[in-house]
């Protein structure tokens, strides 16, 4: 079954608002969590990631929150801009066993001016 799930396939936010993207996972052995941004016909690019030994990581307008007991992580984008409009993919990996990312289906974020 699908190990990483993004339940909301799309989200629309007003410019300047906070975008919140959510991801749930099943494998409690995952210890690396990441968010990728993807434009149509382009490669997924890493936005921000976090290891399981921290609950939160900030990088500019981006913050990842990790809730291990709830098997949930989220991406918050503050001061959302139209150029943030893209598909956002969450991904997780169990780093002790080998290199393979498990991805969610993606969520389309639209930031309207």
């Amino acid at each position, binding site marked *: 079954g699908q190990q990483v799930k993004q339940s909301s396939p799309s989200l629309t936010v007003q410019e300047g608002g906070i975008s919140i993207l959510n991801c749930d996972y099943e494998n409690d052995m995952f210890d*690396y969590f990441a968010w990728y941004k993807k434009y149509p016909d382009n*490669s997924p690019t890493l936005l921000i990631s976090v290891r399981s030994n921290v609950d939160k990581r900030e990088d500019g307008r981006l913050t990842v929150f990790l809730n291990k007991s709830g098997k949930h992580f989220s991406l918050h984008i503050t001061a959302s801009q139209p150029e943030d409009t893209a598909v956002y*993919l969450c991904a997780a990996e169990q*780093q002790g066993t080998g*290199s*393979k*990312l498990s991805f969610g289906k993606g969520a389309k974020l639209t930031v309207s001016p």
Partner: protein
Amino acid sequence: GPKVLQIPSHQIIDMGQMVTLNCDPVSNHLYFYWYKQILGQQMEFLVNFYNGKVMEKSKLFKDQFSVERPDGSYFTLKIQPTALEDSAVYFCASSLGRYANSDYTFGSGTRLLVI
């Protein structure tokens, strides 16, 4: 930043024929990967490759699939023979180290349509 290039970007092929997807990884990277994304579904891991060998493959990596990187050139995914269910976008990736926090870089994908 450094890029992973995938050639071709689109490919249409008759069912039963052979297809080779090419990936030019980041030059100093040592680990190579293929992922498959069927329309409307998530990207799924197919295989990883290091030091000339497959390290791990998923159940999606059928017997008809093979990978190689001859003489440090393109990292290739060959499908022989192709089937209709092989239609998907295939993403190549490379990394410097073994895990995803090691400069894991994706290509833009090859859109394969088997007819």
